């Protein structure tokens, strides 16, 4: 089989970015990661299943894709893996420049706002309950990550909110 040119990927797992380089040679993969060089044999079993051999070690990788994420399960241990595409240098710089001085407390899941406990302009302490969001019949308290001033209330009781939607905006209070 022909030799294909190597390719590099970056994946973020649990907040850490890892680089992997792959090249296919005579049906086998030559893999470089974390300064290690490995040889592997990979068989697609189905769209969601890949059988891997690393030496004699046989591993079954279950995976599914959803946008930039891959959900991967090995031996019943699940991980969400994000493919990281390198940003051009100027964009990375811009992202750093626009890093927010204020931070938003966001809803961790889709649900309904039950109550907002704070008022605009109020000083809140670390761990103080800011709002309550109900999902799947359980009330979840959103707490302040630090001492801060409430800059803006972005939702009202009764609102349906998505995961990641800001509920309360905070600004640092020295």
């Amino acid at each position: 089989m022909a030799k294909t040119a190597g390719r590099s990927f970056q994946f973020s797992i649990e907040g850490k970015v890892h680089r992997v380089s792959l090249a296919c040679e005579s049906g086998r993969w030559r893999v470089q990661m974390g300064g290690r060089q490995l040889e592997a044999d990979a068989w697609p079993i189905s769209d969601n299943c890949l059988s891997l051999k690393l030496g004699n070690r046989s591993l079954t990788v279950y995976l599914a894709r959803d946008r930039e994420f891959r959900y991967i399960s090995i031996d019943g241990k699940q991980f969400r893996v994000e493919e990281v595409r390198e940003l051009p240098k100027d964009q990375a710089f811009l992202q750093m420049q626009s890093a927010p001085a204020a931070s938003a407390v966001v809803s961790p899941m889709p649900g309904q706002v039950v109550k907002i406990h704070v008022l605009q302009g109020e000083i809140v302490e670390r761990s103080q309950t800011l709002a309550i969001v109900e999902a799947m019949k359980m009330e979840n308290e959103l707490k302040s990550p630090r001492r801060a001033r409430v800059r803006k209330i972005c939702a009202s009781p009764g609102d349906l909110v998505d995961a990641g939607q800001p509920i309360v905006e905070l600004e640092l209070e020295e």
Partner: protein
Amino acid sequence: MKLKKVLVANRGEIAVRVIRACRELGISTVAIYSEVDRESLHVQMADEALCVGPPAPLESYLNMDAILAVARKSKAQAIHPGYGFLAENADFARRCEKENVIFIGPDSRALALVGDKVASRVTMSRAGIPIIPGMKEKGSDIGHFLAEAEQIGYPVLLKASAGGGGKGMRVIACPEELAQAVEAGKREAKGAFGDESVYLEKYLPAPRHIEFQMLADKEGNVVHLFERECSIQRRHQKIVEEAPSVALDDALRAEMGEAAIAVIKTARYTNAGTVEFLMDDEGHFYFLEVNARLQVEHPVTELTTGVDLVKQQIFIASGRKLNFQQRDVNRFGHAIECRIYAEDPTNGFMPSSGRVLFLREPGGPGVRHDCGIYSGCQVPVHYDPILSKVIAWGIDREEARRRMLSALQEMVILGIQTSVGFLQDIVSQPEFVAGNTRTDFLEKYMLPWKQELDQDLLEAILLGAAVDAQGKSRAQKEGLPVRERKISPWQMGGGWRIGGL
């Protein structure tokens, strides 16, 4: 009376479980579903299915008018409520009685008594059954709660009078926390049970949770099917259960079984139910409550006694006498259940929802999987996030435990956060292995938790991801489809009807 058609007033894995029992008995089934549940598994498995309303539980699975209308329309003779929703709702049982539909559960009188946790505490205490110190009436204003809490002594536990499952429950350590906890507890109780009554009892920090499975027919025959231990809990909700409990010897088991029978007889309770106790390290036990329904964890009793509890519920509801007595009930081996929830154990067990992109169910000797999901199904945000239950049976606890671990390692659910990895670590934890299970187990030994990621596992994940990404990018470059996607009209969601039916 032989039942021919049963309406299953629930969703998810428990609706599937009830439908299976009905099929075995040659009873046809009617599923109900909310607008977001059209593609749910229970709808697919039932013989008939009718929509009862919008996604919000109050408008669908708790909507008595709509459910009874479906029962009339489909000519179902009986309603099985599963657990949660209307399972312990005395008003619903009363309405079924009025409309001559059999409610598969206790009658409305017994439900009203045991469903009122406060009233049942008073009744059982009078009958000489030990109860946890606490309020013997529902709390009214905040001053009343403060005074009662002072008398009981902090920490106290706030509980909903109308239901269980951790809904409305709060541990309160000091008077300053009381007002907010009562307010939140009332709201949660109102949302879950339609009744905002709450009360306080003494909080026992690290008891074992022991419960007895009961069956009682309408002729007054009562048997227990031994105990289950359900001490592993998060948010006051069980996640791992087993039978038998390592903490009971035969003498204590017999004594608690007698007490449980007394509870059921005092309440003149019929059908399947569970008598819950808390037990301290000295073997003192206190009556907690009667769960007037089929329990989530009923399979561990089924696997160790060989009795099918759902079928027994149906027999009793249709007026049959129990065809065995206490001395006929045997137990064999050990069973463990792990509840699989759509939740994030690394982040306060926050519920997760979304599409299940892939499911692989576990198998092997002694492994049972009661499952309410499938590859491609949607997990809606509106309901309890339980997905399925893995139950493992073994000749002894260690065999059951190892089978459980192996089953959990085989299990794959992709696309949403689940507790599968967390449960593997629970059943591998040395204190669990030793049987040192108390209600503070998770806080003491497991939390905070993170999925362990060693070098071997990391390499395998990265390799898998990279091979997959490589395949995808090559396919894109060569103009091949990434995945062969057959588009059929069935996948085009919503509004497709045949011949305008």
